[in-house]
Every structure is written in structure tokens, then in C-alpha cells.
């Protein structure tokens, strides 16, 4: 086994937390069950990793096997990457898409290899209709860097592809081209949508985030009841009860009853003239547009926005710039004067 491959496998296994070690190795399915049982999983991690690497050597693990292990690790730790979304489109009136996964894979790899000889491309099927692609980029003269790969997740017969953030922007056009051609599309555009949570991005672009429907079968309450304790002492009166109910109703109409998709930030790049009610201020009456960047951050941005009005921090209804995020599939905005 190549030294670089051994080193690569060693570093990958070292990243795996002990609690997940067995699960990931089983998913990899490279080391058979009986061999795994001979390994002592209670020793110190470094020694365990050494034992595992020796086993891999004895089984002559290739770069391909190592890349597969890397994909599985990343699948278990999706949130460590930041994911972008690309949207592809076809010409109207095209034939029915007869997507063949094997043809897609070979076409994708062929396009990359034609442009760049030093590239490692690996595939792993996921779910029923998705594929995870791992690409390690090299240059004309240098071998691929296995430690800075790009991942692409693609669901067949959909116009969206999810890619992990890549520092090397120079390879993005080639990647876009390979994706577009291999999946029978014509154009590709990067969406202004980014998050660590792949599932949330999928829910937003596939429009799967609101899955509550009224049927005759469900006895679902149609409205969230106001959480005022109705059995409280009758001597206590709720001030602003009508206003609170209005805020609840407006919030529920805007955000719905469902769990919001998870985003970490929304960014607004403003290039507008400053508008002020007060004349004679420093910023007022300037001809040039004011350039500023506003960023809202949160562990769960949309849930935080949803709770603003009920908490009394903001007026309901919220600005449509905030509430349009899942609908428009954007969390990066550029606002200019019309």
C-alpha cells in the first residue's frame, strides 16, 4: 500500500470519534466483521488506529477505498462543512429525462479527467436516488490534494446540486460544467443560499419544509391556541390580550406551524441611499449610495426570527426581507435602489 494512502487512511480514522468508530467501519465494509472483532477497541486511540491501518495494509487498501471512507466520514459529519446550492435548468420542451446513474457517473468523471489529469473522483450512492461525489483536485503537475476535497450531493432528476464550500474557486467552473452536462441540463447558476445543514437546504429548495396539510382524517388543531393559562386566577387580567393574539396570528400565518429549516445567518448587502426623517444629519442628502453589510446570525436563524414578534422585540408583521428567506431560497441579499 502506498505510503500516502496509508497516511491518508490513518488521518481519516483518527478524525472519527470513538463512539462512531464501529458504525463507520461497518458502513465502510472494507474490513470484514471477523477481522474487526480481532481488534481491541478499548486501547488508546492511537494504538487502535495503528492496528486498523495494519489491517488495511494487509488487505491492500487502495486510494479508492480510502476515498470511500472519507465520504462516509463526511456523511456522518455533514455539519462540519458549509454547503452551497447550484440550480440547473434545461431548455423548455425537452424529452423526458431518462437518468441513468452509471452513465452520469462515467460522464461526470470523463469531463473532469479530460480537463485535468490529476483528479480523484469517487462516488457513493445514498438513499434511493442520490449520489455523493468526492473530488480531490490536483494541478497539471501536482497530484491531487486528498486533504481538501470538494463534495457534491446530487438527487437524480432534480435541478439542484449541493456542494461543499471550496477554497479553490478556480475549479468551480469545471465542476459546474461536469455537473450540468452529465445530468442533461444546459445552464447552471449558483444560488444565494448557504448553510451547514444539508437537510435544511434540501427542504428549502425541494419545498419540503411545510408538510402540514388539512385533511378530514386528522384531528389537527387548525390554530395554535394562545398559551395564556385560562385557568389562572380570575383576578389576573392579561393586558394587551387582543394585541398578543394578533401577533400570534400574524406570526403563524407567516411562519406556519412546522419546524423551520435550519440556517445560521442571513446577510444583506445594502447599496442604497440613506433615507432619514431628520434633515441635516451627517448621512442625509448624500448622492452616493450608502454601502453597508448587515448580517443576522443565530444557531437557528428562522426560529429566532419567528420568536421576535411574540417576544415583543419586533413588530408583527416582520419585514418581508426577513420572512421571504425560505420561500425565495435565499439568505444572501443585495439591495439596491430601484
Amino acid at each position, binding site marked *: 500500500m502506498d505510503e500516502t494512502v496509508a497516511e491518508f487512511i490513518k488521518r481519516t480514522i483518527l478524525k472519527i470519534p470513538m463512539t462512531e468508530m464501529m458504525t463507520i467501519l461497518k458502513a465502510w465494509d472494507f474490513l470484514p466483521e471477523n477481522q474487526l472483532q480481532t481488534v481491541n477497541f478499548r486501547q488508546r486511540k492511537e494504538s487502535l488506529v495503528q492496528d486498523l491501518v495494519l489491517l488495511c495494509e494487509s488487505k491492500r487498501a487502495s486510494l479508492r477505498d480510502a476515498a470511500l471512507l472519507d465520504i462516509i466520514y463526511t456523511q456522518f459529519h455533514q455539519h462540519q462543512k458549509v454547503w452551497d446550492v447550484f440550480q440547473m435548468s434545461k431548455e423548455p420542451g425537452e424529452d423526458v429525462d*431518462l437518468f441513468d446513474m452509471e452513465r452520469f457517473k462515467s460522464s461526470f468523471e470523463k469531463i473532469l479527467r479530460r480537463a485535468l489529469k490529476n483528479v480523484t473522483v469517487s462516488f457513493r450512492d445514498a438513499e434511493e436516488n442520490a449520489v455523493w461525489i468526492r473530488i480531490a483536485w490536483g494541478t497539471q503537475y501536482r497530484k491531487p490534494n486528498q486533504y481538501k476535497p470538494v463534495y457534491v450531493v446530487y438527487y437524480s432528476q432534480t435541478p*439542484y446540486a449541493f456542494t461543499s464550500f471550496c477554497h479553490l474557486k478556480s475549479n468551480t467552473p469545471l465542476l459546474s460544467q461536469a455537473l450540468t452536462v452529465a445530468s442533461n441540463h444546459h445552464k447552471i447558476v449558483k444560488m444565494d443560499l448557504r448553510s451547514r445543514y444539508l437537510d435544511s437546504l434540501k427542504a428549502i429548495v*425541494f419545498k419540503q419544509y411545510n408538510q402540514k396539510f388539512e385533511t378530514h382524517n386528522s384531528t389537527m388543531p387548525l390554530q395554535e391556541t394562545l398559551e395564556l393559562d385560562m385557568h389562572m386566577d380570575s383576578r389576573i387580567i392579561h393586558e394587551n390580550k387582543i394585541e398578543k393574539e394578533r401577533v400570534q396570528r400574524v406570526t403563524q400565518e407567516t411562519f406556519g406551524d412546522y419546524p423551520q429549516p435550519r440556517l445560521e445567518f442571513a446577510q444583506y448587502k445594502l447599496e442604497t441611499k440613506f433615507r432619514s426623517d431628520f434633515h441635516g444629519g451627517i448621512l442625509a442628502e448624500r448622492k452616493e449610495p450608502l454601502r453597508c453589510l448587515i448580517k443576522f446570525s443565530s444557531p437557528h436563524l428562522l426560529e429566532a426570527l419567528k420568536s421576535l414578534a411574540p417576544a415583543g422585540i419586533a413588530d408583527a408583521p416582520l419585514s418581508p426581507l426577513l420572512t421571504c428567506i425560505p420561500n425565495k431560497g435565499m439568505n444572501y441579499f443585495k439591495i439596491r435602489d430601484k
Partner: protein
Amino acid sequence: MEWANDKSKGGVLAHLERLETQMSRSCKNLEDPPRETAESDLGTKIHKLRCLRDKLRAEVKQRQARIKASTANAEPDQTLEISEQEAVGGKEENMKAILQAYRFTGLSGKRTSRGVCVCISTAFEGNLLDSYFVDLVIQKPLRIHHHSVPVFIPLEEISAKYLQTNIQHFLFCLCEYLNAYAGRKYQADQLQRDFAAFLAGPLQRNSLCNLLSFTYKVEPQGRSFPFCARLLYKDLTTTLPTDVTITYQGTDASSTSWEEQRASHENLFFTKPLYQVFTSFARNGERLDMSLVS
């Protein structure tokens, strides 16, 4: 003063008395009729009021008697009310059940505050499969609020064509696509699940299940070489393939019996759903076994 002496011995005083009594008599005559009429009026009024009072009293008595009589029949009346309530409740349950059962027709809906939530329940060969929802907002223009249709079903295309002009066609078209997709998916799932023994490798499929590629054998024991099948469903509204390609890679590929088999398999895949094709393989296999035994 002779006449005064003539009239009576009383004289003037007596005459004056006579005149007085005459006058008082005539006054009395004038007064008496008003007093009498007033009296008689009052009398008649009193009489009338008395009669009215008696009448009302009698009526009150009658009503009281009636109430007493009806309260005596109180229990039978109450039970009548209860059974009426039960009947209404039963009807309500019945209606609810009918509304719930509507989904078995494949297309049902429920009014919402915005418009209507349509439920498309798919089925294939008598098996009830997934339900998909489209929540419509009744406004001009008609629009879809949210839905659970998978992203690879061409919902935008269908709604662009029909939603504004012919909503019935929109719903039927969507039903067609979804039912066909559900049927193809069901066939693929069933093949992987129930006939895995016949497959020599993994089943290749895609989101729409409109391209299936697999290698199969007619006998699970695997004495024969496998066939490669490639099924294309170019019409997204059907559950049977439009293109079938069967290839055989055995060493005696040129032999006529294999060619016959290949052709008959192609025909089977064209005309029958997947589980029927493989069930017939299984049955043929049994028949072959039986022939070997005998």
C-alpha cells in the same frame, strides 16, 4: 192680587212653594239622566270587567291543568329528545366517516380558510400507496400555497399549462403523473424486496423510476446465465415500459432457444407489471422442476 187669592188659600207663599217644587222637579229631571247614564256606564263596565276576569281565570285554570297533564307525560318526551340527539350524533359520525373514506376515490379535498387542500391518493393494482397534497389558495390568480409533490414530478409545467384555465384538467393530469410514478416505484420496490433471489446484481433505478437496469436469472438457483434487462418508461403517465432491451451474455448466445426466451421475456416486460413477470418465471421454474422429477 186677586189671582193670588184665587189659586189657593195659601196665598203668595204657597204659590212660591209651588213654583219652587216645580223648579226643583225640572232640575232633577235634567240631572238624573247623566247620573244614571254614568252609573249605568260604570255598571256595564264593571260587568264587563267582571266577565273578563272570570274568563281569564278560567283560561289560567285550563292552562295549569294542561301543564299538569303534560308534565305527567314528561318522561316519555325526554327519552324522545335523547334518541333524537343520538340519531344526529350518529349521522355526524357517518358523515365524518364518508368524508374520510373519500380519499379512496383517489382525489379528495377539504375546505381551508384560504381555499382548498386537495389530496391525491395513489394506488396500483389494488394496493393503496402514498398520498400527496396540494394546498390551493383561491385567489385571482389561483396559486399553490404549499404541497408535498416530489420535486422530480413536473408540477410547475403542469400548473403553468392548466392551473389557471382548467383546474379539473390540472388535477387529473397531476393524478396521472403521481399514480404512474407510485406504480413504477411500487414495482421497483417489490422487485428488490420479493424477487431479490432472481436478481444477480443490484437494481439500478432513478428518482422517477423511469429507467430500470438489472441482471436477472429465470431460476434463483442460478444454473443458467443471467439476462440483462434495461427498461425505459418514456411516458411518465404509464406504469409499463415503452422500451425494453433484453440481452443475454451466455456462451451459447446464438442458440435459438435462448433467442426465443429472450424474445418472450421482452414481450412479458412490455405487457405485464414486474411482479407478474417474475411470478411467471417462478411458476415456469416450478413446472420445469416438475417435468424433471417426472
